[in-house]
């Protein structure tokens, strides 16, 4: 995936280079201008956290379409708790994250225990949560205005740490933790095993229902964090449009990052790069003054080209690998006779 990321990046650079001379594109003061780069990394941070969340459920072979609607619902609730009810912010944050996890739990239980399809369950969520958000707020925009008392949250969303946007730092931290969780922990191995073949995982003694449910809860947790960042980033929440289509950005980032919607494939690094690439693309489209209604056309096209190339490359790699396997197999001596005696002796040693 990294290859594709770089290919698109440089492909763009080349194209631009031919048009305007190589020197100008990435040395373009607008692109390089610290304001733009910082904005770019900030949006990578915010979008990245829930893209990783999406990646977790996609790895189990599921999907979560409700993310954007959850943002709207949680955003409205957070705004109410902080401005109307004057809850202290730690309590409000906790309530919002717990609510996000509870929604994840409901999704997970419906999917793993009632055997509903993830697509259907979260599609219903998508419809219901946004509708509920609009009802709660009487379809009025709510927001935090200039109120004080939760500067820390505001800093996390819009401020900087070590001269880097805080959400990006947070995202990197999430990536580091999730790399361990997904790629080195027992739990992560179980997630991948379930995504590849849930039945075989069950036969190997994995509590598949519990693990699948937990994946949605984990997704809910990260989505909850994103909801808070996003709420403070936009500072005002119009329930009908807040976070709309964001689940699709997350799915696109995960797919671009090498996740397979069939489950069992993907990596945190890939999702990181996928998110970065999508945000970069948006940024470039904006800077180039391309009609904003064409933004999705460009993104759709680029993603399609990227995954097509990935598919072709993967097929070639598989062919190469199987050729190598065969070669090794032919070179492996047929050690059957030697194993017989040894194996029998060892086997007796057990039990």
């Amino acid at each position, binding site marked *: 995936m990294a290859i594709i990321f770089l290919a698109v990046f440089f492909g763009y650079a080349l194209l631009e280079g031919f048009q305007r001379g190589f020197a100008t594109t990435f040395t373009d003061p607008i692109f390089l201008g610290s304001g733009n780069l910082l904005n770019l990394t900030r949006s990578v941070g915010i979008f990245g956290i829930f893209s990783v969340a999406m990646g977790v459920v996609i790895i189990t072979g599921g999907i979560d379409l409700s993310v954007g609607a959850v943002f709207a619902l949680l955003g409205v609730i957070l705004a109410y708790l902080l401005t109307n009810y004057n809850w202290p912010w730690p309590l409000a944050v906790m309530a919002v994250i717990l609510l996000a996890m509870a929604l994840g739990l409901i999704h997970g239980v419906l999917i793993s225990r009632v055997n509903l399809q993830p697509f259907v369950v979260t599609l219903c969520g998508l419809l219901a949560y946004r509708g509920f958000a609009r009802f709660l707020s009487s379809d009025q925009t709510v927001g935090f205005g200039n109120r004080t008392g939760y500067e820390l949250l505001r800093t996390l969303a819009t401020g900087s740490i070590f001269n880097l946007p805080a959400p990006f730092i947070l995202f990197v931290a999430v990536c580091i933790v999730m790399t361990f969780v997904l790629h080195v922990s*027992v739990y992560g191995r179980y997630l991948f095993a379930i995504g590849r073949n849930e039945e075989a995982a069950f036969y190997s003694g994995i509590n598949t229902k519990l693990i699948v449910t937990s994946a949605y809860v984990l997704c809910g947790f990260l989505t909850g964090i994103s909801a808070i960042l996003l709420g403070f980033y936009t500072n005002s929440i119009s329930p009908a449009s807040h976070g709309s289509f964001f689940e699709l950005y997350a799915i696109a980032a995960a797919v671009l990052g090498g996740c397979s919607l069939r489950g069992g494939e993907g990596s945190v690094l890939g999702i990181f790069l996928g998110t970065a690439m999508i945000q970069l693309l948006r940024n470039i489209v904006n800077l180039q003054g391309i009609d904003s209604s064409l933004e999705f056309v460009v993104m759709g096209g680029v993603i399609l080209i990227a995954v097509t190339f990935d598919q072709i490359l993967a097929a070639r790699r598989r062919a190469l690998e199987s050729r190598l396997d065969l070669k*090794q197999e032919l070179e492996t001596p047929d050690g059957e006779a030697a194993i017989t005696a040894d194996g029998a002796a060892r086997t007796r040693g057990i039990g």
Partner: protein
Amino acid sequence: MPDPVLELKGICKRFPGVMALNDVNLTVFTGEVVALIGENGAGKSTLMKILGGIYQADGGIIRVGGNEVRIRHVADAQRLGISLIHQELNNLDNLDIGGNIFLGREPLFGGPLKFIDRKKIVEQSRVYLQKVGLNVAPTRPLRSLSIAQQQLTEIAKALSVDARIIVMDEPTSCLTLTETNRLLSLIGELKAAGVSVIYISHRLMEVHACADRVVGLRDGKNSGQLAKAEVNHDSMVRLMIGRNLDLKKTKTRIGDVNARIEIREFVSPFFPRHKITFDIRRGEILCLAGLVGAGRSELVRTIFGTVRSLGGDVLVGGQPIRVRSPKDAIAHGIYLVPEDRRKTGLLTSMTVRENVTLPDLWRFTRLALISYRKELAAAELQRKRLGIKTASCETLAKSLSGGNQQKVVLAKWLSLSPKLIIFDEPTRGVDVGSKAEVYRLMRDLADSGVFVLMVSSDMEEVLGVSDRIVVMREGALTGTLAAHEFSEEAVMKLAVARIRSSKKPVSNTMERILEN
């Protein structure tokens, strides 16, 4: 000698990384039954898929009835009178039987409107179903049939196209003995009608019974052929594996009656009417025999906890244990080597190492993180112990041969501490050479004090490997055979026996219907 109806000359087929077929020749005469034998991966199925138009050969000539032909499509093959019965079922189980038999060739009416003539389908299907001895209405949905019956439907389909050459790729892999015998006599009828049959099977007894000539394939090349007079078990094995097979029957053991695992009044949710009671003794290999669909797999899967039992106990050392999921069973040392390796036994798209360590992953961790080195060490140990032939432990399980995949499934359990290992059809899809190894491993396990329960439908295996046989029929236990009572007849008699009925009258009616 009449002219050959089919001639394959110098057929080559290359897959990425594999030379699947290398200069293979095969000639079939009119009304001849040619058996094609060889280990898994020898290229039999590939050759037949080329004949059926599913693959294209990279080189070589195909002549049908003396004319050189090119088979680019399944439709081409059908036009030439070649009909293929696949190893894996290719039925559409949402259609009914008749719909499957006439799939793609539905009789039509209404001119340009092309309505399907259901009545004609039903009438004609009935004829072919009778020929294969399947007495069910053609309007029944295919999914309501057992696997064996579906296989027979597939054969009926092949008959219905009036083929000159019928290829049967492992047609009996899930048929029972009676059904197999019926199939063999059907092959005799086809032969008398001038149809040529290419018969692929691992079951050498059947090959011996029906083949006029045996052609061997090994590693994608011809390995020789045998005329009818030369066909016997040893000569065929030599043709397949290029050496003699040492398969001497080991002395049967008598299990220790005092050390046993008891299954007491056990009820699986698949057959809620029947309580099953038997015991497994230390040191023996106990076989659960019966026809396909007798409820053996369902029973062992319930013991393993993939579904909840409806009652009864499993007693280990006199103590009942509670099993509500495979996780519980594994915690008690009860392991299952399931019937369907690719679906339930293995994660085929994961590596050998990941498969071996999956059931007890926590053992391979340091500070809650998986230690690659510990995993690899465990996998390497099992690989050496079981003689798993693989390029490395990082190879994906799906690229291993059937026998080696089965060893990986076993390796999963052997790296734990097994108390009872249940083998469900342990040698299905495993080639002759590896079969002997699997048997030896089972014997070693039994000798080392592990309880061994095997489910098998292969009569040779049932009689040759086990020390005691428990027979089931339609979810009920019909009898137990000790070693001195072993015979094919005794097993079959119990397998089709009438259940001693103390059940509700409904069930008696059901059984009467089934008997008639």
